[in-house]
């Protein structure tokens, strides 16, 4: 009788454990995959942002032939009207587009004259290694407050800079010869009002050479 009672008890216990398992055995691969899915993918994000938000926003950027004369005439007024800044920063950004003639070429920059008849470098397209947050912060499309962990937000910056280096600059370097015409769009970061803006240093998000 005792053996039967033990048998029944074990069967009941097994049944309870089957219905309400104390623990789950999950393959390590599944856990790793789930963890990876939770991790913010800055490269993927930057890729989507570039295509779906940044490029379409170029149509709303200030035209270089409007901005440059405005800066010449009154830098403070131009800053107020056309720039944006982040947080308590003294530095500010312009998001601009335009067309210029190549007047100088080096490994690190392609210099453009914007004004008709000018031979001076008025815009310098940055064409070396790209660093910093000009693309991320220059358009106002992305906001730090939307990212609980600022490391994710910073990773976006690095990923966007990488896109500039890999998608925009190779063709620019290959085709931009002195005298060529370049249609461009990009972001310029200005440290403060004492910064020399001749030329305005622009990190290109788009550059088409004709």
């Amino acid at each position, binding site marked *: 009788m005792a053996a039967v009672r033990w048998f029944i008890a074990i069967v009941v216990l097994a049944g309870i454990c089957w219905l309400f398992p104390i623990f789950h055995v999950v393959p390590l691969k599944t856990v790793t995959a789930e963890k990876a899915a939770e991790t913010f993918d800055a490269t993927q994000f930057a890729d989507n942002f570039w295509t779906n938000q940044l490029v379409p926003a170029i149509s709303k950027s200030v035209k270089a032939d409007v901005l440059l004369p405005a800066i010449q005439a009154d830098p403070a007024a131009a800053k107020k009207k056309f720039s944006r800044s*982040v947080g308590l*920063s003294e530095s500010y950004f312009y998001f601009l587009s335009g067309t210029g003639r190549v007047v100088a070429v080096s490994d690190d920059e392609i210099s453009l004259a914007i004004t008709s008849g000018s031979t001076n470098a008025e815009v310098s397209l940055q064409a070396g290694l790209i*660093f910093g*947050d000009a693309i991320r912060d220059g358009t106002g499309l992305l906001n*730090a407050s939307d*990212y609980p*962990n600022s490391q994710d937000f910073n990773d976006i910056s690095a990923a966007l*800079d990488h896109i500039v280096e890999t998608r925009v600059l190779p063709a620019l370097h290959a085709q931009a010869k002195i005298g060529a015409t370049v249609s461009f769009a990009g972001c310029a970061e200005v440290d403060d009002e004492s910064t020399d803006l001749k030329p305005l240093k622009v990190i290109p998000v788009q550059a088409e050479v004709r």
Partner: protein
Amino acid sequence: MKTNWFKLALAVLAAITILLLPQASPAQTASKGKIAVVVSTLNNPWFVVLADTAKARAVELGYDATIFDSQNDTAKEASHFENVIAGGYKAILFNPTDANGSIANVEKAKAAGIPVFCIDREINSTNAATSQMLSDSYSGCVKLGQYFVKTVGKQGEYAELLGIVGDNNTWNRSKGFHSVVDRYPGLKMVAQQSGDFDRAKGLEVMESILQAHPNIKAVFCGNDAMAMGAYQALVTAGKDKQVKVFGFDGADEVVKMIAEGKIAATGMQFPKTMARKSAEFADEYIKGERDFPQKVPVPVELVTPENVAKYGDYGKK
């Protein structure tokens, strides 16, 4: 006569009693309530400046302010929050010890109706604190990285002293620096160790790095306290002329050392600006304002021997 002596004694006694009564100071009389300043550590002059400035601005704005030192310990920080919540404080100006570990404390305060304003260090949540005033460590270290390459060159061995591993600033600084330096394959990081943002630990870690890697050309430190510790180790080893030290914070002592040519550069974080603005946000909240940006980036400026004259007293002169 007896009556007169008695009256005189009574008068003197009354006068003494009045003199001995605790007098309310003008500030106390006009106090708008209590504000707590909970700071990760006071074992670092930079954080002392941060906490003192926050307190001073809160007092200027008419509040009683008290500083609570968490000693880089989340358990102590939790205990401070319990006391602050029970103590009827109207707002907390908060420098967290841990980006993840401090979230629960902020949520407790929020549940108790007390707004929390993070200063300098963030928590990994965008719906717990009322606002977070944060140094843009990443961008600051991108600038430091560029200056590092310019002054150290594109070839050579270097070391890195990380801050507290659980703090986002540690990684934002490291990642900003490496986003630049790693692009130069000739620059090889031969050691990367945590010095916990601490001067003594920075010295100790630097001593062991120097023994294993005597040929390094530079050391990048995640804060100025570790940079001072590292410099001390280099002086002891007779390598202070060989190894360039880069810090981050803008501590007054380091700014002076840059002017003296002892340290190569630092990132100025403006603790006074952040602390004052956070106290002002708390005041606005208490007065009824509810619309605050969740994250307010505060820029970091590169301080080098070329521009050091413009900086001092934890900011721009």
